[in-house]
């Protein structure tokens, strides 16, 4: 029996075991950290010879499965804050639309790629470094206990002054409704600019700005990624015909299993361990991207589309 499979929309044959393995690895990361994994999977598919537009659209389809699997596992464990997730999702959809228009305007000025590249490196570098620094401090036990007299930061004062306060019992926090909505918009804009699902931006936002517990963060992030990617899949299939379901199906078989294993490992690791691992992955991706901009490419032309 042949282990090769021909993809009807991509028009390419790929090895079944390779796809299953890739799906399992990315699904594992998804379940472990609450990220979609598009920043990893799409470039891998392009390296296998899949057209960039088809790689990105089909990856969105498989992320639906991985995030559904991960959300289910986390929901059973009671670690999905549906209320917070819905508000972040609402903001994210609005921000995503705004980001698309922003990119269009920048393309008109001929500066889009420079802006996108700078955003990537600054965001990934900033988020990764901060998470790494913070986690190392926690692990070394050097976190100073906040004393009551400490003057709250300007950000904390701004957050406290916002109206429409609401309790989020699952996350054990109280915030203004405007906080998750506004941060959702911000992440949506950045996701649209960077062309990714936004999990690796959303996770640090939930940890550091919304002060949610790490285990709830992962489940809630997967919950909102599920809807974002379902929306992208339907739009890409209807408008651009770029979803290869056979490709997505093979990837998702690997990724749903990987996501379950990731969710199990997630429950066994401490929050600071998870943060440090996530920080390392974000920094590795940032360094890879930076090298991609600095080193002379093998080939100076590429097909249009993709992330």
């Amino acid at each position, binding site marked *: 029996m*042949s282990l*090769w*499979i*021909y993809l*009807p*929309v991509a*028009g*390419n*044959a*790929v090895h079944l075991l390779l796809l299953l393995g890739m799906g399992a690895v990315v699904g594992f990361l998804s379940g472990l950290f609450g990220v979609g994994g598009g920043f990893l999977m799409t470039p891998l598919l392009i390296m296998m*010879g899949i057209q960039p537009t088809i790689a990105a659209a089909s990856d969105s*389809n*498989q992320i*639906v*499965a*991985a*995030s*559904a*699997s*991960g*959300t*289910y*596992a986390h929901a*059973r464990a009671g670690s999905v804050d549906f209320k917070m997730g819905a508000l972040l999702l609402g903001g994210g959809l609005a921000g995503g639309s705004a980001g698309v228009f922003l990119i269009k305007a920048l393309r008109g000025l001929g500066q889009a*790629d*420079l802006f996108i*590249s700078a955003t990537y490196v600054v965001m990934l570098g900033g988020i990764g470094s901060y998470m790494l620094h913070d986690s190392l401090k926690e692990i070394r036990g050097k976190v100073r206990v906040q004393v009551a007299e400490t003057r709250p930061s300007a950000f904390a004062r701004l957050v406290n002054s916002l109206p429409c306060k609401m309790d989020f019992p699952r996350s054990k926090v109280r915030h203004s409704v405007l906080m998750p909505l506004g941060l959702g918009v911000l992440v949506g804009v950045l996701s649209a600019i960077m062309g990714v699902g936004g999990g690796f931006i959303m996770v640090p936002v939930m940890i550091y700005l919304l002060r949610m517990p790490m285990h709830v963060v992962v489940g809630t992030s997967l919950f909102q990624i599920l809807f974002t990617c*379902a929306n992208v*899949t*339907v739009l890409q*299939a*209807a*408008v651009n*015909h770029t*979803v*290869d*379901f*056979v490709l*997505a*199906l093979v990837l*998702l*078989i690997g990724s*749903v299993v990987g*996501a*379950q294993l990731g969710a*199990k490992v997630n*429950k066994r690791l401490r929050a600071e361990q998870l943060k440090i691992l996530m920080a390392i992955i974000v920094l590795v991706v940032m360094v890879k991207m930076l090298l*991609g*901009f*600095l*080193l*002379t*490419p*093998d*080939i*100076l*032309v*590429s*097909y*249009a589309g993709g992330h």
Partner: protein
Amino acid sequence: MRGFTNNVILATTYLLWAALPQPAVAGETATALCLRPREVSLGIHYHGRVVHAEGTAPAGDKLALVCAGRREDLRLKKKEKVLGLLWLNRGEVHFASVPSLYLLDTSDELSRLASPEALNRLGVGCPALEAAAVGARPPDQQSHRLFAELLKLKQREKLFAVSAHGVLLQERPEGVEHWSADLRLPTKLAPGDYEVRLFGFQQGQGKLLARQALEVRQVGAVAAIHSFARKQGLLYGIGAVLIALAAGVLTGFVFGLGSKGGH
């Protein structure tokens, strides 16, 4: 009875003639180019395939066999150094009339077959593709460099390949030479009509000896899924999401059952 026998002989002769590869060029011999198979099916297990080509040619000819796909206009992103530091996509480059597939097998080094001008005239070799791709404008250094990059891209995808000595010659006593070659179709292959052409070269002059169509089509589940994705995009997208959701939840359920009684 005699009339019936004659009719049978005539019909049999016609059927045998019809089964042979049909000549498309004046002066070519009926067996100049024969492909096995003449149709390639893209089924779910397709992962590249060898098409065997063989035939006869005038003795002493050097041969070039070209398998080419439909010609298309390509718009590619080009990378340039920005601020003397960063490699970024800066604008697009346009190439006209680039074949989707170009496999070239020759019986000798390309440079020994004919002059570059003669090869260009027949559309044989990468310089001929470049001449067609950049169009009427004179090729400048920039477009030449970018076309070389396009070749690298296509070669990496195995969509362009040149094989010197890929055509094997075998002299026959009756003044013709028998030749054969294996065309290796890549794993990345789009459905459509492809054409295989045989060129003969003698004393630096070349001519088309024969051509044969090679049909590549999707079959079975591959054809059905491709057609569904094209014709019913919205329904296809919704279906893809629902199946992905079901697979995700089902796996979550199964793993949940397995972990009952755990921590």
